[in-house]
């Protein structure tokens, strides 16, 4: 039997086009949203959650860091998942739907499950598309997206901070030649999404020179792939003679780029200063907080976000539920920093990135969903109540957000009220 609020809602909004929207939570699930937006908690207290995707029928699939994949279904139309099924294993981060296939990645492999129409949980075992990717624990998430060519673009991070040798991340870290290392780490590789058991050697090495990118999505209009990259840590640990706590908290930028064939994003030699809008040499490679990188050698970021905020999933907004300005812009979840200490941490929010008439970001962004941490001043990530990680757009244009900290899933709706 439908719950009372659903009955009330259908009576109240019987003639309205928005009658299908659920009743939001009175406290918006703890979030602060722009006027007219509301939130409800779809599921709560699941395992720590990573990437997310929503099927055309509204079923939600969300990765867990260490365990299986959750399938979440709302069977009575109140917006809350009353069917919560966990399947598979291996943890990981990446997830995407393509036709009847549910693709997902662990830190080592990319798999796909065949979905049965109407069934939340896949019936058979997964097929392995890419196997045994390089994984040395640090920066091991293997995010992926499908390009305009239908091919699978899979990221492999660099298990390193700034390639500072044995002293990487410690006082006096000294850069080493990364040429060999970058042949297997720190880039995107392209694979055939229909071919089983590929290795990295079977992939096409598409881009290089990144530390760790956990953000990749296809612009629905221009059909270009966009990525964000996590900047390096610990400038003031490695080279306190050049960087103080403030320099470290505010450097380097988390950068946003278009992903093009052969692109080199400048790691480990350089970093981008978001306040001065300059590309500088890393101290491991002769930098001193002032020395600029060779001009024009590496692409300028399209957006230079504040340091250490940790950009996770990116989702272009393709729905019509939200006001027109959101259409074909993108939402990006920032899981929140740890390396701004002893300054307060930053991030812990979902931002909206407007795209212009040329389908490129304008360079600006605005906070969309905030207060995940549940407090104004965050000393340490452990103090945050929630940390947003996944974002996905549902078939009716609702935005879904997943939580890496306490396993919550929110649905954001727009009611104009």
């Amino acid at each position, binding site marked *: 039997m439908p719950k009372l609020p659903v009955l009330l809602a259908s009576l109240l909004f019987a003639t309205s086009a928005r009658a299908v929207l659920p009743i939001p939570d009175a406290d918006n699930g703890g979030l602060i949203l722009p006027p007219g937006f509301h939130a409800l908690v779809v599921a709560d207290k699941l395992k720590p959650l990573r990437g997310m995707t929503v099927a055309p029928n509204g079923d939600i699939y969300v990765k867990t860091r260490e365990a299986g994949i959750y399938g979440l279904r709302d069977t009575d139309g109140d917006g809350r998942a009353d069917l919560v099924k966990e399947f598979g294993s291996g943890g990981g981060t990446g997830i995407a739907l393509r036709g009847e296939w549910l693709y997902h990645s662990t830190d080592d492999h990319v798999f796909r499950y065949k979905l049965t129409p109407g069934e939340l949980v896949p019936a058979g075992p997964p097929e392995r598309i890419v196997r045994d990717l390089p994984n040395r624990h640090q920066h091991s998430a293997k995010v992926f997206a499908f390009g305009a060519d239908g091919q699978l673009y899979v990221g492999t991070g660099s298990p390193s901070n700034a390639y500072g040798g044995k002293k990487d991340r410690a006082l006096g870290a*000294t850069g080493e030649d990364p040429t060999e290392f970058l042949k297997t780490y720190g880039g995107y590789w392209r694979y055939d999404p229909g071919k089983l058991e590929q290795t990295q050697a079977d992939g096409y090495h598409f881009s290089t020179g990144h530390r760790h990118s956990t953000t990749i999505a296809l612009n629905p209009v221009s059909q270009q792939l966009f990525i964000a990259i996590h900047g390096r840590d610990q400038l003031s640990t490695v080279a306190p003679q050049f960087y103080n706590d403030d320099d470290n908290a505010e450097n380097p930028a988390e950068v946003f780029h278009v992903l093009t064939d052969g692109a080199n994003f400048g790691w480990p030699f350089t970093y981008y200063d978001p306040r001065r809008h300059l590309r500088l040499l890393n101290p491991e490679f002769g930098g001193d907080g002032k020395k600029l990188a060779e001009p024009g050698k590496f692409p300028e970021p399209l957006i230079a976000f504040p340091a250490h905020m940790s950009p996770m999933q990116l989702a272009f907004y393709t729905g019509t539920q939200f006001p027109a300005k959101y259409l074909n812009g993108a939402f990006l979840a920032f899981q929140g920093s740890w390396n701004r200490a002893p300054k307060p941490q930053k991030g812990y929010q979902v931002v909206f990135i407007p795209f212009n008439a040329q389908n490129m970001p304008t360079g600006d962004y605005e906070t969309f969903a905030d207060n995940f941490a549940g407090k104004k001043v965050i000393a340490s990530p452990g103090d945050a109540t929630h940390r947003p990680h996944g974002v996905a757009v549902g078939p009716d244009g609702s935005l879904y957000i997943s939580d890496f900290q306490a396993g919550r899933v929110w649905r954001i709706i727009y009611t104009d009220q």
Partner: protein
Amino acid sequence: MTVRVLALLALLAALAACARREPAATASAKPAAPLPDDLPSDLSAKTFATAEALAKEGAALFTQNCATCHMADGGGVPYLQPSIKGSAGISNPDPQLFLSLILRGSAVLDEGAKAYENDMAPQDHLSDTEIAAVATYVRQRFAAQPITKPVTPADVAIARARPGLPP
């Protein structure tokens, strides 16, 4: 080693020497403010009567060398760096395992023993007395049962001379 690397090392050594000043009368002052001016001075010439005295020096070293990863409250960062509150490694009365970890970082751990995504960087740029101070502080503050017995520079020298983990 290239000339450039040697020059860089010499520069770092010179800078480190500049940063080392005579200890100011900070005993009753507030906890040390962040780097670089308030880094504790070279401790090697000093002796400490009590673990408390040694740990006082260790607090600033903890802020500069450990808190960036393990956070000021020792609580760590989920999946990246462990909480060290009550950690078995530091709660063991024998400090040798802990000292090996400080000196050589997570490279001393077996691949299978690594449970966190990040690597712990070796902290062997610290002197034996500095490591004794920070280890004493950490054991006093974060061990399951506070350990008052100080870690000595001699303990650190033993760990430094041994290539891997204690037997």
